[in-house]
């Protein structure tokens, strides 16, 4: 029973992380129908900048709010810098071209950003774990947990709620819904579709960078952390259905719990859990748990 609690706690903490890193990918795809292969690199940039800000401006005893503020700031900086640049300069030119060209384009950008990160921060691990170690810990199920991962559970829940609210209850969300449903009609209604695209891509970039920034205190940062994140986030959102925020949330929880259970009960399977679940889901529901099949008009 106690073990089950521990498995659950670890699973939830991991699920929160999964949701934070995959929300941006699914959001961008939802609006633009472009899978951003540079997502992992934006994550890495957010993580590095977050760590840098923490190292420079946060004392070891900093308040929770101040620390989170710094990390959020890092994410916003990266998103505002990279998002419009990528979308306006590059992506915009290939919307009319085939899907695989769009994939290749973001792949090219991912290669470039990988080296940009390396040129700025070098190859030695960057460590900024103050919030992880300094926010104190709590004893649950007989063992010690730092608060930070549970803080992330809170942040993930908050983010999920926020995104849900924005999408369903605000004018912005309705404009987004219109653009997703029909680009052309949206334009004839007076919606500045290119601006919505820039906005959505930037929002996705901020979310990606936020995932990274919030992760920074838990990991040490080295080149290449982005690539894994891309594959994992894709698996999560493929399970949930590409473009669905709710799907990403459910996918995160499923994968998080399964992976945690695997570590405890079948450690040899750890590596494969996420792909196993993805394969199973796609076998029976090719469009993911919350995806929809589109029928082409003929």
């Amino acid at each position: 029973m106690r073990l089950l609690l521990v498995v659950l706690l670890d699973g939830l903490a991991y699920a929160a992380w999964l949701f934070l890193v995959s929300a941006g990918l699914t959001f961008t795809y939802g609006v633009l129908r472009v899978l951003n292969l540079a997502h992992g690199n934006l994550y890495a940039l957010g993580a590095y900048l977050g760590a840098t800000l923490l190292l420079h401006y946060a004392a070891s005893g900093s308040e929770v709010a101040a620390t989170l503020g710094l990390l959020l700031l890092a994410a916003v900086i990266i998103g505002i810098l990279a998002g419009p640049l990528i979308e306006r300069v590059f992506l915009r030119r290939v919307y009319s071209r085939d899907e695989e060209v769009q994939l290749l384009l973001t792949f090219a950008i991912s290669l470039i950003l990988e080296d940009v990160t390396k040129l700025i921060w070098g190859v030695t691990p960057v460590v900024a774990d103050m919030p992880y170690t300094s926010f104190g810990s709590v004893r649950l199920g007989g063992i010690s947990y730092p608060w930070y991962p549970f803080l992330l559970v809170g942040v993930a829940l908050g983010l999920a709620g926020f995104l849900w609210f924005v999408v369903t209850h605000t004018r912005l969300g309705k404009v987004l819904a219109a653009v997703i449903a029909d680009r052309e009609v949206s334009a004839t209604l007076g919606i500045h579709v290119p601006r919505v695209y820039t906005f959505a891509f930037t929002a996705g970039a901020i979310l990606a960078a936020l995932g990274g920034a919030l992760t920074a205190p838990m990991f040490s940062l080295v080149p290449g952390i982005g690539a894994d994140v891309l594959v994992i986030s894709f698996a999560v959102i493929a399970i949930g259905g590409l473009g669905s925020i709710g799907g990403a949330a459910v996918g995160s929880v499923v994968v998080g719990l399964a992976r945690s259970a695997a570590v405890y009960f079948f450690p040899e399977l750890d590596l494969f859990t996420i792909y196993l679940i993805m394969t199973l889901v796609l076998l029976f529901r090719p469009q993911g748990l919350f995806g929809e099949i589109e029928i082409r008009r003929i």
Partner: protein
Amino acid sequence: MHEVLRLERVRVAIQGAEVLRGISFAIPSTGLAALVGRNGAGKTTTLRSVMGLLPLRDGQISLNGEKLGDLPPHRRAALGIGYVPEDRRLIGQLSVADNLLLPAWAQGRTDVKKRLAHVYGIMPEVRALATRKAAQLSGGQQKMVALARALMSATKLLLLDEPFEGLSPGLGEKLAEVICDVQRTGVAVLVAESDTKRVSFVERIYTIERGEITEQIDHR
């Protein structure tokens, strides 16, 4: 009499094939005109070009004497052009009210309530549908809502693509009345239609064939 809409030698190609081959015509102020031609003659292409959804290969489109050039569609909407596509294309998951309000939000209009009241005034039956999801409506209802939505932006020009298709005769008559009402409020209207008889109420009919205007008939 000044012209709300004027097309001059407009050429448009889709996927390399020329669909409009130098179309010229005009709608006078508060005019009510129809573009009549068979499927594939270029009616829809003409309306889409006016809306800015297709780039011109050659020629000019002007609104109240101002050349529209390559102004993107959302700017044209802001200039007061409303467009009802043939297949309605409402945003299914939003309510009817939200569908109507979208143009106002997008254009940042301040007179939302007034405009909405105006539209409900012309089409009171749409008010009753306000809270329903667009996807739940019948085809005819969707058609009316799409018209109402276009009216939210159409302060100068309303473009209707085959509005009578799929409407029951009764609803068709009702629609013709609404179109006349709209015209009376000072908005020029251009209707694309395949059958001359259905647009007997308009002032002027242009016949379009294979991307060219072949005939102009003035009713009044």
